[in-house]
């Protein structure tokens, strides 16, 4: 063993249709450069050929090696074994398949649901007739290119969808990766399918919870939640396309108006503007059961004294 080599224990959550789920531990020698894909390769080649996992490029381009490493959704190739030991303070590295997808074998999951989400947003450019016939060529301004670049970097690894809480509870939400891809084409000046894309994307965008899990786990720093926020801004121009975008737009507008009016967020007022007086009263009656309704009514917020300055900071919106 070289001086810098260390032994780590790797605890893998395994699964096969015949045997079900079980945990298996391996011991592997690593140095400070050893990626988790290399760890898994050594286990498979030197200790246990029955271990199944996906990996290909080992450089965060192919998107094959998504899994949970010590509880965090990660690409195995971008995870250095000894950095995990440092992060957790334990010599044992726990490796599990990605959450949210059916497990086929060991660390290999079925990504059909992920691909279906991506296909729903038609993840390719729809050029104009003239471009297709060779009568003109595509032009893209540098500022558009730089805006779109980030959202075009998706490698379809599925980590963001695997960790997204909204995907789990809402079949109408497309999920973060599809939204990043969708926005990339929705706002591409060369694309000709704006209306079709807007219909697919706008309402779904209002079904995101802004939990920033996708921002956190994306190995390509795409920040899908930012694409979702940008997609929501199309609601004002295009109009809502369903209940979520209809309520959501009203709610966001009410928040903006409340701040411009008083400098504060007046929760009760925003709720009434979003859901209407009748629904708000019904909610209020419900809250009385826990003795909470009076708190909402008794809000004691004051208006910001520097409201004129605040309005200037908001671009003089009133």
């Amino acid at each position, binding site marked *: 063993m070289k001086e810098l080599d260390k032994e780590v224990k790797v605890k893998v959550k395994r699964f096969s249709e015949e045997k079900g789920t079980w945990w298996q531990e391996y011991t592997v020698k690593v140095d400070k450069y050893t990626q988790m894909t290399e760890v898994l390769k050594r286990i498979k080649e030197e200790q246990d050929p029955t271990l199944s996992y996906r990996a290909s490029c080992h450089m965060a381009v192919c998107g094959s090696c998504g899994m949970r490493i010590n509880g965090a959704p990660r690409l195995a190739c971008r995870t250095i074994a000894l950095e995990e030991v440092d992060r957790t303070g334990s010599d044992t590295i726990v490796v599990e398949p990605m959450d949210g997808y059916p497990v086929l074998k060991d660390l290999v999951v079925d990504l059909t649901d992920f691909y279906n989400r991506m296909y729903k947003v038609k993840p390719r450019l729809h050029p104009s007739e003239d471009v297709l016939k060779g009568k003109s060529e595509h032009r893209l301004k540098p500022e558009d290119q730089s805006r779109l670049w980030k959202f075009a970097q998706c490698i379809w690894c599925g980590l963001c969808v695997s960790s997204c809480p909204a995907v789990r509870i809402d079949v109408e939400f497309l999920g973060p990766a599809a939204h990043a891809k969708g926005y990339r084409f929705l706002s591409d000046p060369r694309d000709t399918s704006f209306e079709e894309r807007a219909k697919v994307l706008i309402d779904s965008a209002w079904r995101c919870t802004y939990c920033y899990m996708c921002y956190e786990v994306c190995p390509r720093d795409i920040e899908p939640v930012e694409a979702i926020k*940008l997609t929501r801004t199309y609601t004002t121009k295009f109009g809502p396309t369903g209940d*979520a975008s209809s309520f959501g737009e009203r709610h966001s507008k009410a928040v903006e108006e409340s701040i411009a009016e008083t400098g504060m967020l007046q929760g009760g007022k925003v709720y009434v503007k979003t859901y209407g007086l009748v629904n708000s009263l019904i909610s209020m009656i419900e809250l009385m059961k*826990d*003795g909470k309704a009076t708190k909402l009514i008794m809000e*004691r917020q004051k208006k910001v004294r520097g409201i004129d300055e605040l309005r200037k900071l908001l671009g003089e919106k009133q």
Partner: protein
Amino acid sequence: MKLAYYPGCTAHGSAVEIDVATRKVAQTLGVELKEVEDWNCCGGGFLDERDPVGHAAINLRNLSKVEKMGLEKMVTPCSVCLHSHRLAVHKYEEDPVLKEEVDKRTQGTTVQYSGKANAEHIVWVLLRDVGLEKIKAAVKKPLVGLKVATYYGCQMLRPGEVMGFEDPHSPHSLADLVAAVGATPVTFPAMTYCCGFPLMGSNEKGGLRLAYNIMKGARDAGADLLIHPCSLCHLQLDVTQVKVRDMFSLDWTMPAIYATQLLALAFGFSPEEVQLGRNAAEVLRQKGLI
């Protein structure tokens, strides 16, 4: 220790108990909270998409006031306010186009932000600047036998590069506080998931479903109640919990209280003094703790 204090709209409105308990805890531990004068709303998590420049500008207005107070840390009990201010600073520093636009808007106003001040969560300040030893020493009524689920939610943790206090995938700040007051911390898989509040304006049923996942997760892990670090989690998990119970026909409750409410109880304040909700008070009574 003197710190700038930003309660946020909700702690000055429908979740005033958060403000009350936070001030009591700070006072007990010798932390002087100096409220930022004439502070404004952070945007509530929604303004940045409609007006990114305005969002950054109004958050910098608060931080500029903190700098004028000669302070750098602006402590807040609300994760959304924390997130909003820190994200505004992050974008202002990282995006030169946005910075130019924000600087144009702030011209001729009182806003002069040098980049020194930033928002801090009260939990971070308690752990890093006050320290567990001092907290333990202030405990008059150890909450022995109380199983407390530690719910972190989203915005205090993520994005990790912007929040920067603890590992967003395996946080333990709240568990450290729970253990310090003699109670038993209970972790559960959903402790870093969303409470659903941000969905309440667009997909209420979805939001309530997410809240149910948190309540059920805490209950399945054997908790008596849960603590959280956010004014808006408080609205979702405490104030509107009754809606979750109706939607899922539940015959049980999972009291959700703010982190400093728990600390204040252990420091000897009464349930009335920290405006504890009736469900939480009932649990403490059953446990013989009040």
